[in-house]
């Protein structure tokens, strides 16, 4: 079952697969007809083998969609695993340490100067 957002009722309603909302667009499913067989195709050299090589890197969005849509109740800022945790902990350590240091610095700045 596919859903789409109806602008008329402002609710989700059922829809055909092609009209359903998908941020990366939908790939058509399995083709209904099997492709016609081609016999005796000459062997291709490697450079010709994949004409669909993408300019400046392949599309890995679907791979990331699988990673970030995994149902593991991990919040989005930690979903990627170790690199995310490292960055998060560094930021949090700076936040706590910085706040404490700031309090000390402001307390010292508030003391009268010794002449």
């Amino acid at each position: 079952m596919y859903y789409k957002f109806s602008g008329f009722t402002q609710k989700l309603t059922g829809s055909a697969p092609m009209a359903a909302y998908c941020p990366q667009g939908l790939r058509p499913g399995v083709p209904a007809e099997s492709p016609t067989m081609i016999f005796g195709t000459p062997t291709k050299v490697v450079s010709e083998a994949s004409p669909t090589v993408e300019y400046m890197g392949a599309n890995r969005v679907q791979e990331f969609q699988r990673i970030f849509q995994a149902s593991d109740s991990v919040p989005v800022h930690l979903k990627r695993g170790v690199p995310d945790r490292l960055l998060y902990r560094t930021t949090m350590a700076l936040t706590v340490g910085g706040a404490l240091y700031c309090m000390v610095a402001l307390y010292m700045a508030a003391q009268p100067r010794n002449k």
Partner: protein
Amino acid sequence: MAHQAHPYHMVDPSPWPLTGAVAALLMTSGLAIWFHFHSTILMLLGTVLLVLTICQWWRDVVREGTFQGHHTPPAQKGLRYGMILFITSEVLFFAGFFWAFYHSSLAPTPELGGFWPPAGITPLDPFEVPLLNTAVLLASGVTVTWAHHSIMEGDRKQAIHSLTLTILLGGYFTFLQALEYYEAPFTIADGVYGATFFVATGFHGLHVIIGSTFLAVCLHRQIRHHFTSTHHFGFEAAAWYWHFVDVVWLFLYISIYWWGS
């Protein structure tokens, strides 16, 4: 993902508002400590924390929109209103500087000599580098539109090329402005002329740098296939912002550089 029967984005709990607020505390306290005790440690700490926060916060927004599909059409509508309100507030921010400029220049006080530009000020020639800057920014407005149409038509190669060209033009503008600042025969301390000139054009330059960064993030995302021909609001927001910066420059050029000289 859990099934939801509405199109709105329920965000995950996030640490970034907290780290961003502490970064603001560290930067403001750091400035005070810097001014009073000549120590930049707290200021630098606050800046590092702010940069870490904004990088991770916007990284999460990209994950939510492109990888998790939370930016449904109604959610995108909210993003659009948000960006429109943000740019409106920026327009009012610049309106304040134009007000200061016209307040000072339309009825110059006797202290200024009763005329504008004030006595002793040699303004920059508007038909030299500033005119080139105008052409550069107008050209970047063309290339950003070229990039938008390329994205809408799914022309990946042209989108990357035109976006790169836009960022290069932004960089060229910033370079020329830096050169003008270096060669200017007056400073920010030269009375109300220097103050209004450098505050208005300086904040504009800051916005050009922010806009170029925004476009560079879009180029990075375009290279990584994040934008489709129907869903690319991140790019559109950057293009709106770029056009806003462009229009502010036109007003600056006509008012301060041309009429004001």
